[in-house]
């Protein structure tokens, strides 16, 4: 076991933030999720106050911060929870068995707390920390001691979230990005749940050195996820119908290095077919033959407009925006590179595919296909794209609805284009695991969509 220890290169897998990097801020344990870009001037609004995000630069992903109300203005300070303080709900399983308190005598009439709003403001002006205020509120609550231990912790947590909110610095990765969007704006990603996305990647065998053809109508999430798995080798061909590429703002959140960005290329379907007929002997399809249900144009337009207006990647339900003192936008619009300092420049992904890439795809075929077009007709897309895959290449198609996939699978069988066909529906349930309180979570996602997977067969084209 004593080979040279491989080093996870900082370029591939950075664990420390840097100026200009994209981050996911998790406020108060998932209550609010905000995508942000770190720079000297960027800020985060919590409640009605703005905190600078500068203290977060140069910190390890996974670090926790607490909002401290300083004498002048609120700031984020690094917070390391003491080991006996974190997740106190589980503290002393044995104590729960001895719990004799219950809530029969507690009347909820809003009069238990003797500290007023003005008292609290006065404390703040004197420099009290958030934690001190929480302790003061507990001390001044008439009913606190009568509560069960579980109830006390719930109370403490509630006050802490209000007076000493915590911000967790998360690394934007396929998993966290997908979960954030699924939680707050699932429609933008076509209700593609994280387990469904993981299945797409596995079933399509997305790996280093592969050339993956992607139809991504889920905001760029699928393209980004594939590029993440490729890690800079191979290529991701993001293709589209019609005149304009689909919105892919999500790709920018991934913190991709230049190397990875270069692997993401745009290529239009129509052009592809004109090339195909010349080189591969595949019958050419004219644009008119695409009988697609048109993409709901207005939905796409709205996404793009919203992004430009807000210049924010927020998925928070409140209005969170990033302001920058020197006026530069923190987020770089798709086809424009900020001319300001290099540190704020977001690397460009999704360049038009260069000729040699196209040539290589023609000669070798794509090694797999992923379609995430939850509002399109699956068969229409598949029958034209499958011939572009190399023989024995796997494919995975995601759809919100079952019927289009059933029709697609049936047609693939009839046309003898693929084998190993399977329609799967992923089912995911989370559990709460606590002493004496273990059970599945009360809330659950009802659907993560459906996936049709299979492998392209070799067809003797001389017969077709």
């Amino acid at each position, binding site marked *: 076991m004593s080979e040279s220890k491989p080093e996870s290169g900082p370029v591939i897998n950075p664990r420390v933030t840097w100026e200009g990097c994209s981050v996911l801020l998790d406020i108060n344990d998932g209550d609010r999720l905000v995508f942000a870009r770190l720079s000297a001037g960027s800020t985060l609004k919590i409640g009605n106050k703005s905190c600078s995000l500068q203290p977060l630069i140069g910190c390890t992903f*996974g670090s926790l911060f607490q909002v401290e109300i300083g004498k002048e203005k609120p700031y984020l300070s690094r917070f390391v929870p003491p080991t006996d303080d974190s997740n106190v709900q589980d503290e002393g399983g044995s104590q729960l068995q001895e719990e004799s308190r219950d809530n029969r005598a507690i009347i909820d009439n809003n009069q238990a707390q003797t500290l007023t709003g003005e008292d609290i403001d006065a404390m703040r002006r004197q420099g009290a920390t958030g934690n001190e205020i929480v302790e003061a509120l507990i001390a001044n609550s008439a009913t606190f001691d009568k509560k069960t231990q579980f109830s006390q912790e719930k109370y403490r947590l509630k006050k802490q979230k209000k007076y000493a909110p915590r911000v967790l610095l998360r690394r934007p990765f396929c998993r966290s990005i997908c979960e954030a969007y699924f939680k707050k704006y699932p429609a933008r990603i076509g209700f593609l749940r994280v387990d469904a996305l993981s299945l797409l990647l596995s*079933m399509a*065998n997305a790996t*280093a050195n592969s050339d993956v053809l992607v139809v991504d109508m889920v905001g760029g999430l699928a393209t980004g996820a594939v590029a993440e798995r490729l890690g800079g080798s191979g290529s991701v061909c993001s293709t589209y119908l019609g005149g304009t590429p689909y919105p892919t703002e999500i790709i920018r959140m991934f913190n991709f290095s230049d190397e990875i960005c270069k692997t993401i290329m745009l290529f239009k379907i129509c052009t592809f077919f004109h090339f195909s007929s010349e080189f591969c002997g595949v019958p050419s399809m004219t644009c008119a033959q695409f009988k697609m249900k048109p993409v709901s144009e207005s939905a796409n337009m709205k996404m793009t407009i919203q992004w430009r207006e807000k210049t924010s990647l927020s998925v928070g339900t409140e209005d969170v925006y990033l302001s920058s003192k020197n006026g530069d936008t923190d987020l770089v619009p798709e086809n424009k590179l900020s001319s300001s300092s290099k540190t704020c420049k977001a690397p460009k992904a999704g360049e038009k595919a260069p000729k040699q890439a196209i040539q290589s795809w023609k*000669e070798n075929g794509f090694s797999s296909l992923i379609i995430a077009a939850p509002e399109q007709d699956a068969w229409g897309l598949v029958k034209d794209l499958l011939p572009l895959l190399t*023989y024995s290449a796997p494919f995975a198609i995601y759809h919100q609805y079952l019927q289009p996939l059933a029709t697609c699978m*049936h047609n693939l069988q009839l046309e003898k284009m693929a*084998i190993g066909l399977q329609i799967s529906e992923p089912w995911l349930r989370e559990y709460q695991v606590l002493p004496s309180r273990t059970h599945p979570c009360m809330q659950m996602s009802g659907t993560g969509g459906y996936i049709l997977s299979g492998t392209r067969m*070799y067809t003797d084209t001389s017969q077709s």
Partner: protein
Amino acid sequence: MLLMDSSKKISFNRCIREGDLVIVYEKHDTMKAVKVCENSVLQNRFGVFKHLDWIGKPFGSKVFSNKGGFVYLLAPTPELWTLVLSHMTQILYIADIGFVVMYLEVVPGCLVLESGTGSGSLTTSFARAVAPTGHVYTFDFHEQRAASAREDFEGTGISNLVTVGVRDIQGEGFPDEFSGLADSVFLDLPQPWLAIPSARNMLKQDGTLCSFSPCIEQVQRSCETLRSDFTDIRTFEILLRTYEVREWKMDHSKFEDGSSIAGPPCKRRQPSSEASVGDDTSFPAVVARPSAETRGHTGYLTFARRKCVS
């Protein structure tokens, strides 16, 4: 498996060669991994297949036996490999594997520690995820199983990405040489809480851990142990429901009043020998229903992140 080596990558031009590993596909749930050797044959219910006939054909081809039966020859992928292995040992299935790799945030260049190795099905998917610059160190306390796994990894061409060690992780923990270097740790052990303190030492800050346990008691105990040094502790169950698809001809002529059970609107006419367009007695529809047999449980997946202390 083939993809990771550019010279062996599947493509339009790449044909089956001597020494290649192929997946022989008989039907959906019957597959077998075979190493191509020009003098060998494959014998099954469809007859005798000569390997020599396979050489020079593209992957994905249909090949025939002496009796006219046929099978398909597919290029190996970790998913097909898992299905091939599934008849041998108790393993994690595709849904669990895919979810674990994503949730552990395994990407090219990562260092992954795993115990136990078992049949190497998950290990193969880890190898795929860390290629080409990362590495998977997997440990099993059963010497024979470790040796057998090593052979498999040679056969599937991933042995440069995986190192198999014989070690009792529950008793001894992971080797010190990996301290602070692991991006992810995966545990499939009967008593994972015994290995968690060692896992804590191996992981980088914010590194990910996953423990797979069939029983809820194991999960409870693991979570208890995780709480001191880990955060973001979440436990899931994941299952895959499959659907059967059929064509269903519904006979309209039975309804005198002209009403009918309309099938879902078919966007395309089936191009095969269906009734002519003007047919008014039957209306083919494609219908789907969940498969009657399905898996009820594989195990609970508990994930956690190593706390940041600096």
